């Protein structure tokens, strides 16, 4: 049966501060819900798992020359966060102007999803 992408469901979860993950029914590997086949074993059956969208900052950048549409937010950070599991998630973070504002290892959480994709905040 034809199934629509899980992206909309993923977005609805992100708006609630959660990550919709897919756990492989064969090998238990976790993936983001936008994946259709397991990267580890190739299996295609998953169970949905909702993870807390919280973790620690792995790396980031502070953007001062933005793409179109982001002028009004500049400077802002684009951040990669390690979730409590083996998953990482990246997204937009407002109000970061200098590296001292966001040391590596800082705690961060997902707070929303809008036209800027996943919205993160420092905790």
């Amino acid at each position: 049966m034809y199934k629509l992408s899980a992206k909309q469901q993923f977005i609805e979860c992100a708006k609630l501060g959660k990550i919709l993950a897919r756990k492989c029914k064969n090998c238990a590997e976790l993936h983001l819900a936008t994946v259709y086949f397991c990267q580890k074993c190739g299996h295609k059956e998953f169970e949905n798992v909702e993870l807390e969208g919280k973790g620690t900052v792995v790396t980031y950048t502070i953007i001062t020359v933005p793409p179109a549409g982001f002028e009004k937010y500049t400077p802002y950070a684009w951040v990669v966060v390690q979730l409590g599991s083996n998953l990482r998630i990246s997204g937009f973070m407002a109000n970061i102007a200098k590296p001292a504002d966001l040391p590596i290892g800082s705690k961060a959480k997902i707070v929303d999803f809008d036209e800027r994709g996943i919205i993160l905040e420092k905790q």
Partner: protein
Amino acid sequence: MEKVCVIGAGSTKYGKLQESISDITVQASVDAIESAGIEPKEIDAGYISNVFGVADKQVHLGPVVMSNLGISEKPSLSIESACGSGSVSFREAFANVAGGFYDAVLVTGVEKVTHTGTEWTTTYFSYCSDFFYEGQAGASFPGLFASMARAYLTEFKATEEDLAMVAVKNHDNGFLNPKAHLRKKITIDDVMNSAVVASPLKLYDCCPFSDGASAVILCNEKFAKQHTKNYIRVIGSGRGGSPAALQGRNHITTIPSTKIAAEAAYKMAGIKPKDVDFAEVHDCFTIAEIVDSEDLGFFEKGKAVEAVREGKTRLNGEISINPSGGLKSKGHPIGATGVGQVVEVFDQLTGKAGERTVKDAKVGLTHNFGATGASCAVHIFQSV
């Protein structure tokens, strides 16, 4: 498998060009054909790499090129793989000649974007990322590589000044290249004092947006011997992939596709990284050259900055990296870059590199990837 050779190469200058995308594509193609000393009718097929033809009102470039060469009846393929388009296209051409489908083919790469301005070029380029997670969230390409740089500077004993040294070295080389986009020498202070684009990367850590076209003629060895003594052999070809988004990688300071492609290319060539005399690597940002030269096996993980500090990667150092000036100084017309690297290797190994000649070079390597290394191709060449 047929042995594959490069018998001709040509390139426009890289920079801000006035001519149209189709004009520069044809111009580089004609240069390559003349350099090979062949007639267009001897070409069996064309491979044309380009990313943003839509920005200059011309996609489906293949037939336009073939028609202008008087061989409209010959097949062509237009290929896109972000900044890695040129090398991916080269690989498809290589595979078809090696497989015996064609005796001789044209490979041309081109880009024409500077007329769209910095904001829109930055925006278009961000479409090459895994857009849902990266471009959409405001990650520019400098931003993605800046994230890689911050991770590297945190994990290893390296500083922003070390990264700046890569830019200084590549500008020294590009200064000797008449076709380079940014043909001027710079200092570490110039880099450190340039405007921050995406911290920790500054303007002079970034390659420029460039227009330009490059072309080569690939053929089997029988065809090569019938036409010229001035040819080089392709002895290794490898390709690989990485998770499209940086968040999908466990280590952000290494690019998986480079390692996979390099291993395959070294294996086919039957050589080790230490056998390479010079390499044209994908230095879209200073951090990229550091990561590349480790992933390609030239230096241990975390040791490439030390090598740069000691001058090992300078022209005629232990291993000359980016003798052309690299993407940083020679320029980065993204659809052309991978082909342009082969042009440099051809010029180096056939004695046409002038002042920037790598002395006694026999083996050259090209490394070119798309986006943050989501797609990659590595090729190894040997003089005859």
